[in-house]
């Protein structure tokens, strides 16, 4: 059974690897946005040199890590949820439920494959471009990179688990476009993509750091920047794993309720 889901992961990877021009176009756009945001952060950190505990180099690293993770975390769409909603609307979901594969497991495997490709295809080049133009605070220790990789992997699962709940909402709503859009907005804001959460003022920052979206950027970035190191880095990973478990369980529960609503008509 593990081999089956591994095969779905590989196919998910290959499916997205097919679109090379689109990937190059995405890399270009991420790089342009990285440039624009970098200059605005330079102006900001010029006024407040240690804002949120980051140096300017750390803030710039944060920008480029964010651009590198944007596609992998499917923060602006491109994930499976729209496809799943279409299948729910068209009724094709009945075929999926009839298959000898678990619905959540299938989509999780496919989405992890996608994320793995987009991490390599759309993550590496923007960060390299950023490192060419600006002085970035990238760590030398392989252990830190390993912890970062674990944080990103867990962040991807959290991202999936949230989008799975969003996708299931199509069982109740006829047109899920509104929910998908709301999810993007909340995700972009609370992951720290627009501004690092540690630069949010007061209680808003504390709340944002405790919410699951922080696993998509703030937590992995803090591990990479060694703002969270040693035992604290492990605590950060445990935080992500906790949210992943809670959200996956919620998805499983909702999936049970939703599939009981499915009525398959003959013909």
């Amino acid at each position: 059974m593990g081999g089956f889901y591994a095969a779905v992961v590989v196919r998910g990877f290959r499916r997205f690897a097919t679109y090379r021009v689109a990937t190059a176009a995405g890399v270009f756009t991420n790089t342009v946005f990285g440039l624009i945001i970098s200059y605005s952060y330079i102006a900001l950190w010029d006024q407040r040199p240690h804002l949120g505990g980051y140096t300017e180099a750390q803030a710039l690293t944060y920008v480029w890590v964010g651009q590198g993770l944007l596609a992998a975390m499917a923060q602006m769409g491109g994930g499976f949820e729209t496809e799943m909603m279409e299948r729910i609307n068209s009724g094709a979901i009945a075929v999926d439920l009839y298959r000898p594969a678990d619905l959540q497991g299938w989509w999780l495997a496919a989405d992890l494959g996608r994320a793995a490709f987009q991490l390599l295809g759309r993550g590496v080049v923007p960060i390299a471009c950023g490192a060419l133009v600006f002085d970035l605070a990238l760590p030398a220790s392989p252990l830190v990179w390993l912890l970062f990789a674990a944080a990103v992997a867990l962040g991807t699962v959290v991202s999936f688990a949230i989008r799975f709940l969003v996708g299931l909402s199509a069982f109740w709503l006829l047109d899920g476009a509104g929910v998908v859009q709301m999810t993007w907005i909340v995700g972009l804001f609370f992951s720290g993509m627009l501004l690092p959460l540690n630069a949010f003022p007061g209680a808003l920052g504390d709340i944002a750091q405790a919410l699951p979206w922080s696993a998509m950027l703030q937590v992995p970035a803090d591990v990479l920047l060694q703002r969270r190191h040693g035992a604290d880095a492990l605590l950060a990973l445990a935080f992500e794993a906790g949210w992943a478990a809670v959200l996956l369980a919620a998805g499983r529960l909702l999936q049970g309720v939703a599939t009981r609503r499915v009525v398959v008509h003959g013909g």
Partner: protein
Amino acid sequence: MAESAARTRATPAAERTPGAVAESVRAYRLVVGMWMRSTMAYRASFVMTALGNLAATALDFVTIVLMFSHIHALGGFTLPEIALLYGTASTSFGLADLLAGSLDRLGERVRDGTFDTLLLRPAPVLAQVAADRFALRRLGRVTQGVLVLGWSLPRVDVHWTVVNVALLPVTLLAGAAIFCAVFVAGGAFQFWAGDAAQVQNSVTYGGATLLQYPPGIFSRELLRGVTFVVPLAFVNWLPCLRMLGRPDPLGLPGWVDFAGVPVALLCCALAGVVWRAGVRSYRSTGS
């Protein structure tokens, strides 16, 4: 068949007559009307997406406000001054996105061959593509831009001379026209590279983000690029710097601050040429 249709459609003389313009506007309004009725079939979803659109764009501004919880000036600009830049950029871009934003989905139609259907219809192609899947929810961005602009106007230190008062609406419209030209050129580009649709996002959405910040914080190479290559600086930077009485970091002569309208017209003309070349080069998938 598609090819011959493309030839008749791209006949320049027929499209330059006033009758052809009226025909385009009529076709555009018909298609837009159809999509609006279709949108209103799912009213709850429309309300959510329109509010979502407003909230999504508002978050950009919230980010800037959060930045200002730590600082008093960014790149030498106060919050109301940045709000002026933000409001003008957002309103212009929002209008262009509403009117012509659908052009960024042209690649899909080229890929799956449904562009043939548009060529066969007795209506101007550009009008059809621009109105295709018209999304009324994009009013959210315009509304938000106008609100921020309205908030900034009484708070910025501008001498409201006749010139400055006239410059503001002209700037908003010329800016919208420049962004529309970018959408048309970007759409035409997808005839050649349908999969690369994302590239134009870096000029449209990226441009709108860029123009929210004072030009002084960016590198000179970037400023030259958005002045002379893709003339986004004319959307709001140059006229706003004039209104605020601030120097332009590139040190261009003063009259360029008023060049928005001619630049917009030039952009539209160039976009039209690129669009025609794109339509002419279109080859149906044949399926």
